[in-house]
């Protein structure tokens, strides 16, 4: 199993179509860089994307340089995955 320590999920709110298209540009990156949990659909809907720890700095800089507002939806995915795994194991027992 892979380890996702430090990977984050960012929630981005695009103001307009132009900002949305900047997010869509990220879709063209290598898939390891950004994984859209909720893709760029329309400005009124949030965009959620998982960013590996190694790419966080680059992606956050990209968002900030284009004036895209974001918040950290999940600070460390591995913590949640561990909790989920533990809950499943407990239920199985």
């Amino acid at each position, binding site marked *: *199993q*892979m380890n*996702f320590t430090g*990977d984050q*999920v960012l929630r981005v709110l695009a103001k307009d179509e132009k900002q949305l298209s900047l997010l869509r540009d990220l*879709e*063209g990156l290598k*898939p*390891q860089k950004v*994984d*859209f*949990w*909720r*893709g760029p*659909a*329309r400005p009124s*809907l949030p965009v*959620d994307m*998982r960013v590996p720890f190694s790419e966080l700095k680059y992606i956050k800089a990209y968002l900030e340089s284009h004036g895209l507002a974001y918040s950290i*939806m*999940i600070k460390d*995915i591995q913590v*949640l*995955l561990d*909790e*989920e795994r533990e*809950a*499943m194991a407990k*239920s*199985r027992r």
Partner: protein
Amino acid sequence: LERSTSSFSYSSYHTLEEIYSWIDNFVTEHSDIVSKIQIGNSFENRSILVLKFSTGGSRHPAIWIDTGIHSREWITHATGIWTANKIVSDYGKDRVLTDILKAMDIFIELVTNPDGFAFTHSMVRAPGKDGRRGSRHLCRTWGFDSLGGFILLPGNGSNSNPCSETYHGPSPQSEPEVAAIVNFITAHGNFKALISIHSYSQMLMYPYGRSLEPVSNQRELYDLAKDAVEALYKVHGIEYFFGSISTTLYVASGITVDWAYDSGIKYAFSFELRDTGRYGFLLPATQIIPTAQETWMALRTIMEHTLNHPY
């Protein structure tokens, strides 16, 4: 593995093996009303199973519900399992459900993408993009998150980039999991409602996705979606968007409900189940039952309307 459905935890996430074992027990315990049908095999040769709820009779009109076409959306499989159990436990007690089952059959496909679901348990849950082994698709999430568009037709709004959310796929029904459903529904020929359950954007949508133009039954579908969303809201106060796919989410062709509607299934809906706003695909297991409970009320509303408005 669980030996009886009574000890099964509906408030936990489960592996494919556990779910398939539960299906076997469930069918055995409720053989008077539930049966299991294998409608095909997945790309990696896993069984594709459908639960049939029927009180008998031949050529009953039918309702289709599928969960888990996006395999990392575990809340959908969990909701489907709870729903299946709810149907059995409420039959004979809930007048509406009883009336529905006396006149119609309900089919539920709990794990629409078994390969992808197994992958999320054996390898990783969080990442989305991973090519199917031996596949020509290097980016799109064939074995994992998505089967792409349901019918995978190129067209307005769909995309030739396999890394895109709206990738249209190499050819119509190119995936065996999709073809199994299409063949089954087509051969049956008497489905009156189809509900495809996804997560996690809190939406209930109807055709079209491919075009902003309203379908001929737009008013009825709008009103029904509104009623369903209101019934859902009354359970735990969760608000859903509703409307046509193209006006609510995005314009994209080749998706499930468009195909269903164009195939003559008027009551075609796509659900996006709840999100707490924080967890996305990692919705905590404590939210499985609340999610399923509220979803059930919406499903029941759609099924009741289908029963009362034959066509």
